[in-house]
């Protein structure tokens, strides 16, 4: 059977419809429905437009030909009962092309995706990056800010300031998803995951949990347990006001850990060399000598007292030798891990002084 | 107590070394004899004999502390 006029007409209609679909997806008002709240969102939307346009065009082609064949080659009333179809088994040329063209398409898609992937993936924190930590609980979120004691219930970000977001969870896997940011990362207990982005649009955005976490999974709240969870992107002035007010309000908030036993330590006589030996035997199983998010059981401790991105310790206190000693004395329990206290670790006051001296020497 | 368990370990090592060599030789000879046999299950047998010889070899190395894993008492 020759490819007749009907076939070519159908093909023309299919091509036309495909072009219309591509045109539609190129100009579809995605941002009208969903604003793009961060810098990465635009690129992800472009990828989505590419995928949607090519996908819809493919669907139109397949559906178009199926429907045309179904209509054109249906058994009619006058078709003899023993009629058979065209006895063609294959067509190597055709098969070659329809293997090659999808392969090319996949190649292009892979290049685009890989390229975009490297733009999205966490890069090393720059100098002016705001480092925020988001923590999942059953069933609310809390956040930790440099310079603010303890955990706060709302997430505010200043617009146009690069953000490095570390996430983890206390109990089960949660996730951090702001649909208007097009970004998502799971909060896995025992792991620190990272997102890097720059907010570009002021507003209030819903924060959703997409990793099933139990009874109220559909109803995760902000840390105050009152409101739905939101991320607020504020103008710099408004953010500053919020930050100052919160810092004041949180100054006297209770610690995540028990208050110190009160034993006063003399940190002045610490010996870094002795501390180094002790670190290797007592601490290195759980703490890497790497950046904060190089986590083993607890966070990495390189520059723990000198990291501008982490001016706070895991319990929210300022990173000072005294506060490090306090954690060594009392232990710590939270999403960044669990650390036994002084007695359980079997270290003396002198050991603590040595360790603090050693940690202080790491830069 | 210490002395006894050290002696036991010593004896264990000697036996492991000696019998390890026996098993290694036996498995190698068996593999050589079977080399030309055909059939699906015989191919599998040959593979397994080879692995058995490998295992015996590893046990010999372990018995003389050439191969020692992490977290293992010598």
């Amino acid at each position, binding site marked *: 059977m020759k490819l007749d006029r009907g076939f070519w007409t159908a093909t023309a209609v299919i091509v036309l419809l495909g072009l219309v679909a591509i045109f539609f997806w190129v100009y579809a008002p995605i941002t009208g429905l969903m604003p793009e709240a961060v810098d990465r969102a635009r690129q992800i939307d472009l990828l989505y437009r590419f995928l949607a346009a090519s996908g819809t065009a*493919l669907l139109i082609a397949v559906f178009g030909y199926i429907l045309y064949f179904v209509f054109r080659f249906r058994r009619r009333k006058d078709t003899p009962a023993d009629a058979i179809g065209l006895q063609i088994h294959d067509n190597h040329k055709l098969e070659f092309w329809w293997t090659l063209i999808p392969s090319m398409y996949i190649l292009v898609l892979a290049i685009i995706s890989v390229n975009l992937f490297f733009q999205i993936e966490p890069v090393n924190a720059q100098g002016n990056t705001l480092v925020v930590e988001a923590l999942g609980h059953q069933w609310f979120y809390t956040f930790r800010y440099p310079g603010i004691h303890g955990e706060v219930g709302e997430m505010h970000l200043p617009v146009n300031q690069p953000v490095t977001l570390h996430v983890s969870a206390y109990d089960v896997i949660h996730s951090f998803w702001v649909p208007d940011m097009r970004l998502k990362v799971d909060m896995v207990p025992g792991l620190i995951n990272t997102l890097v982005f720059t907010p570009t649009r002021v507003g209030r955005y819903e924060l959703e949990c997409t990793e099933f976490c*139990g009874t109220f999974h559909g109803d995760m709240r902000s840390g105050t347990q009152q409101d739905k969870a939101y991320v607020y992107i504020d103008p710099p002035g408004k953010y500053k006001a919020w930050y100052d007010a919160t810092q004041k309000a949180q100054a006297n908030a209770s610690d995540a850990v028990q208050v110190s036993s009160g034993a006063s330590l003399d940190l002045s006589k610490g010996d870094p060399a002795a501390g180094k030996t002790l670190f290797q035997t007592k601490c290195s199983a759980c703490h890497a000598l790497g950046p904060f998010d190089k986590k083993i059981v607890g966070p990495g401790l390189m520059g723990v007292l000198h990291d501008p991105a982490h001016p706070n310790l895991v319990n929210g206190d300022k990173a000072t030798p005294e506060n490090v000693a306090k954690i060594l004395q009392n232990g710590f329990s939270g999403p960044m891990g669990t650390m036994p206290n002084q007695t359980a670790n079997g270290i003396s006051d002198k050991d603590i002084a040595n360790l603090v001296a050693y940690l202080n020497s790491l830069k | 107590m210490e002395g006894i368990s050290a002696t036991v370990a010593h004896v264990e090592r000697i036996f492991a070394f000696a019998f390890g060599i026996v098993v290694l030789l036996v498995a190698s000879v068996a593999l050589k004899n079977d080399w030309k046999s055909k059939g699906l299950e015989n191919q599998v047998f040959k593979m397994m004999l080879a692995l058995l010889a490998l295992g015996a070899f590893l046990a010999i190395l372990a018995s003389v502390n050439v191969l020692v894993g992490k977290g293992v008492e010598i």
Partner: protein
Amino acid sequence: MAVAAVHSGGLADHIHPEPQGFLRKYVFSIDHKIIGVQYLVTCGIFMILAGALAELIRVQLMRANGGFMTPDTYNAVFTMHGSTMVWFMIIPLLTGAFGNLVMPVQIGARDVAFPWLNMIAYWIFPVAGLMLYSSFLMGAPVAGWTEYPPMSLQGAPGTSMWCAAVFLVGIGSTMTGMNFLVTILKMRAPGMTFTRMPLFVWGQFVTAPLLMIATTALGAALAALFIQREFGVPFFDPTKGGSPLLWQHMFWFYSHPAVYIMILPAFGIISEVFPTFARKPIFGYKMIAFSSCAIAILGFMVWAHHMFTSGMAPTLQLPFMVLTMLIAIPTGVKIFSWTTTLFGGVLEFSTAMLYSIGFLMLFTIGGVTGVFLAAVPFDLHAHGTYFIVAHFHYVIAGGSIMGALAGLYFWYPKMTGRMMSERAGKWSFWLYMIGMNGTFLPMHWLGLWGMPRRYAVYDPQFQTWNQIESWFSFVMTASILLTMINAIISLKTGKKAGPNPWKARTLEWQIPSPMPYYNFKHIPSVFSAPYDFAEPLPYRGLEEELTDSPPPVPAAH
């Protein structure tokens, strides 16, 4: 003519004696055809259960603030819906039911390689199903069918029962896989080379190793979860050194191939239906067969694409992304080949053909969204949302179940000797198409707009679309019920089918319907591929099958 078959003594002439008594004939039967029907009926029961659970989900989602069920009940309901549909409905239906029913006949064998193992594999399945549903009595599992720890470590005692039940049904699957693989490798009729096998047999042949290997890996994961829950061994508990991601690796190493277990046999079914009702050979037989193999092999290398947001190393994410995209190529080849098979045919729109065309369209939608999700940057947005729900329901409800329904309408006459009502069948098809698309199409944009999955309550702006979906889901249920009623009533009232109502050309249509216990009086020999409608049938030795010559004599033991 009235000469009983002569034994050459080989396996091909080894016939089980005719089973005597109700128990041996219909309950503890070792006949693959009876076992196939047993699977089919059991799967039907699980379909009703899981379908009812699905409707409970849809009723709950009619209102944004829920209220029909407590969140915990809702969580248990969707967990059981997913678990039942995957392990107790679709996998046994496509492998156990249709595989047993026709695969041995299509290769010209008298039975599967290990009939007793086959019987045991079947009987494990309803027992495991009872165990699964008994977990409702002790507090049903609530963490979704994926049961991610640490959530599943908090779950009710029923979670351990869930582990045991799925482990058991997995053992049954493994047995079926081994059985089918040996059967297809060793028991083909003389002349039935690999390139002369019907494509349904190819589907089963490619599925069997997946069943055998992947299911065992799942067994290990389930055993580890069970051990952790019952004995406190911290595989997955991060506070004691375990890793929640370990479960995700172990689970998806099974569950991604499981997706292909659920779709490859359905590919096989529609590859049988298309040539039969288009009266022309399948286009690109070899490409369809080899692309199935490619999909099965690639299927083992892409599991971590379910974990792009879990915090895996970026260096691992990239190869998984690219490999996942590669699967689109063999899948595309299949879709194009089936579409081209329609070209120049004499298409007869029986219900089986309608369902196959429906399969082709809906599966293509699921495949296209699958390529979307393979791209990590897009997956970062869509992961864990209703977009995912839409994607895999298009693949499973639009692909696997439509394929199974096509198979049911196609092989029902062979199974029972009677036709199903075509009129009711066409109604069921259109209801299914309308209901299926109405239910799952809106989920695409709901997900992209920000509705995560597994929410018992959701934001009010999504309520309208959810109500529309719920109403359409009732249409879908009506369609399934119509098919089931059709199948039951047609047992009694259906038109007599005769051996070959569709004028199909594979071996199972050349023997009487329903198929006799010995399958063939003489094992035929095969000298060509089955789909050349212009040629005479490519089989020798089938002359006596439809005559009333005496059945072959069972081998003496």
